[in-house]
């Protein structure tokens, strides 16, 4: 009997001691003064120009030049106003009351220092580069006015400055950038609490007491905790147990008492055809073959089964429902028509189909397998080749005819077509260029109003016809949050809420 008691106490003691020691301290969830959220890990340095930091981690400590509203409009932030004096010159007026946490002032010199550093640093934040590449030089007009001299037209640069291309780091800190590996020196709404931070895992921030923006402009939590989680199950468990107040979730997730919000459909996800000239895989050089591939897939079915119905059908053109010039007719450009697909293959000289090897990221296997399944039905034998570890190297190698891909579409057609269908596209390792796409882009960017809409609509349709992609739908991201803790400005035309869209319930 004594032995049994000893045994039971031994077994139970470990659990009980721990349970009593923790109850109410680690599991109780956050109050409204503390906001805990999960985010996907990206880079593990606090230098936003060297690595693509989690948007939430970066936005906590660094301000951007502009902000983007939930409806997609770009609004002032560190830059108070802006104007294109000509197609390749952007002039921005800047705030004069902003100070970085190290005491340095934010001014035109700071903007110049940031852009010059961002363009020269290696390695660099790859998400910032597409916009930064347009900036040839930066001139300091006055302390509060800066001029960006562009290499060519880029009407969406103010939008780019609200994203990864807009972080402003203290110019003093940029003189010793190695210190930014684990220290953030920005002018943002929060300051990093290094003692409660584990890099690349948990970032704790406290309110920046000297922040220039008022509580009305940006109501903030007293404490912000960003937990980086790679595993969706872990973030789901953390949400269900009340450890976090905000997370991204997969379709079908329900958390008692939480709200689910759906971002705008902006993930351009499917197959990218690199080899539109047919140099690696001859059939792909024939537009009829690429069109056949698009007729062969059932977009509605893939949207429902692979994407859980969260998104919009897309005709393999980087053009969403929020894009200037969008009309519903573009969505049905490619109907699901197996007979037509086979007919086009026959006309192109491939009545028995052909084989193609596709570079595949195993993370996107579900979409890849679904598309491959449909293509096999019309005789196109797709062999998926998984390259999780060296995907970037393989993409850049130029030896692949096709790849699975997931790219963002912003709803700004000039940027979307430029970044996805011109020679400068990052997912264009073979350097394809289409004269008509380039001409329409050049025409559209200098047009205005209805004419511009018409030109972008024409471009969208032409892009669909050229079929550089096999994209069944633009998918959207789901976000779940505890409405007792955080007030979320629901995203309308953006993929998800920015940090400034997440504010305390009842205000600061």
């Amino acid at each position, binding site marked *: 009997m004594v*032995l*049994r008691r*000893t*045994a039971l106490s*031994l*077994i139970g003691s*470990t*659990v009980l001691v*721990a*349970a009593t*020691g*923790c*109850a109410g*301290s*680690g*599991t109780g969830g956050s109050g409204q003064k503390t906001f805990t959220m999960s985010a996907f*890990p990206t*880079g*593990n*340095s606090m230098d936003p120009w060297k*690595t693509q930091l989690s948007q939430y981690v970066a936005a906590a400590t660094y301000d951007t030049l502009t902000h983007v509203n939930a409806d997609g409009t770009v609004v002032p932030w560190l830059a108070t106003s802006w104007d294109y004096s000509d197609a390749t010159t952007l002039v921005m007026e800047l705030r004069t009351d902003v100070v970085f946490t190290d005491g340095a002032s934010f001014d035109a010199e700071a903007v110049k220092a940031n852009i010059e550093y961002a363009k020269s640093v*290696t*390695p*660099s934040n*790859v998400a910032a*580069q597409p916009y930064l590449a347009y900036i040839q030089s930066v001139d300091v007009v006055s302390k509060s006015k800066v001029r960006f001299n562009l290499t060519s037209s880029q009407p969406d640069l103010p939008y780019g400055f609200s994203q990864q291309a807009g972080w402003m780091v203290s110019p003093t800190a940029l003189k010793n950038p190695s210190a930014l*590996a*684990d220290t953030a020196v920005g002018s943002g709404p929060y300051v990093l609490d290094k003692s409660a931070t*584990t*890099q*690349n*895992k*948990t970032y704790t921030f406290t309110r920046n007491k000297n922040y220039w923006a008022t509580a009305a402009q940006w109501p903030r939590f007293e404490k912000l905790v960003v*937990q980086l*989680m*790679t*595993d969706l*199950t*872990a*973030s789901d*468990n*953390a949400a*269900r*147990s*009340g*450890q976090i107040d905000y997370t991204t979730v997969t379709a079908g997730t329900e958390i008692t008492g939480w709200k689910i919000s759906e971002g705008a459909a902006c993930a351009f996800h499917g197959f990218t055809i690199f080899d539109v000239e047919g140099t690696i895989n001859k059939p792909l050089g024939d537009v009829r073959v690429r069109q056949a591939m698009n007729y062969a897939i059932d977009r509605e079915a893939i949207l429902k089964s692979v994407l859980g119905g969260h998104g919009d059908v897309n005709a393999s053109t980087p053009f969403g429902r929020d894009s200037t010039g969008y009309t519903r007719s573009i969505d049905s450009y490619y109907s699901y028509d197996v007979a037509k697909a086979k007919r086009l293959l026959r006309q192109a000289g491939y009545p028995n189909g052909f084989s193609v090897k596709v570079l595949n990221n195993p993370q996107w296997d579900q979409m890849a397998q679904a598309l491959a399944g449909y293509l096999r039905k019309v005789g196109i034998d797709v062999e998926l080749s998984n*390259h*999780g*570890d*060296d*995907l*970037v*190297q393989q*993409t*850049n190698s130029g030896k692949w005819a096709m790849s699975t891909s997931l790219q963002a579409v912003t709803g700004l057609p000039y940027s979307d077509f430029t970044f996805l269908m011109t020679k400068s*596209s*990052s*997912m*264009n*390792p073979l350097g394809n260029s289409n004269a008509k796409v380039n001409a329409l882009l050049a025409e559209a960017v200098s047009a205005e109003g209805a004419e511009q809409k018409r030109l972008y609509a024409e471009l969208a349709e032409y892009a669909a016809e050229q079929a550089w992609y096999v994209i069944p739908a633009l998918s959207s991201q789901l976000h779940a949050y505890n409405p007792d803790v955080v007030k979320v400005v629901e995203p309308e035309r953006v993929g998800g809420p920015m940090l400034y869209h997440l504010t305390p319930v009842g205000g600061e």
Partner: protein
Amino acid sequence: MLRLCLRRLASVVPIMAIVATLTFLLIQLVPGDPASFLLGTGATPEQVADLQATLGLDRPALVQYGDWLGGLFRGDLGVSLVSTQTVAESLSSALPVTVSVAVLSTVFTVLVGVTLGTVAAVRGGVVDRAVMWTASIGMAIPSFWLAGMLVFAFAIRLPVLPATGYVDFAASPGEWLSHLVLPMIAVGLAGVGPVAFQTRAGVIDQLSRDYVRTLAANGLSRRRIVCRHVLRNASGPVVTVASLGFVFALGGVMVIEAIFNLPGVGTLMLSSIRQHDLPVVQGAVLAFSLIIVAVNLLTDVVAATLNPRIRFS
């Protein structure tokens, strides 16, 4: 004892040299290169080559190995290619997490396994069979499934323990323990069975010895005989099984760290492999190897303490 320790320590050097070399060679076989990863899609071959030169990756593998080994002798594990933190810094924040889980789960395994094995041996009959069945079932449960079930039961349905995360021991010992209870059980349960079986066999064997009868004849209580004498004499093989359990636990924490979002060496290694951050991967593998070698050494010392014959063999 000192000679035993010195002999074992001397064997650590060649083992670590082999591990270090194999680690380096295996990592050379991993497809992809850090420069391409860091620069992303769209990088030109010139940009990749420039960054490779900056990072020193354009040098012959043997030269890189020599540099790395030289650094190792100076206690310098190198610098992360991605974060520019030193590898030692990265490991110093991750190692306590992994070691905490592994040590706690081993303690759990030993505590529960020895208790169950002893109860089964002493009580016999139905209790013995029930305990051994339970231990066998515990061995068959995959740790990742158990982790999910534990979270559901004790963090979601009955919210008494946190589902994810880690708190430093120095910050709050209570929270440290509470965050590690579920990972500890998830990792440790599978080891309970072998320890219980080993303990049961050892205790049954010892209970049949003459000294047990003599001690009982001298009026010692059964509990005292079992706890003071039988368990001590039966513990030799149990220590070996427990040390193997620790090594098993170290391997298991890789998956468990992901499920519980623990910032340990497993998580660090996984993200470093994904980012092609080779110095960190090398440092992490080396750290794992060092821990395993240290545990083996400790096991030998404990076994020798418990059984003096080992010291003189």
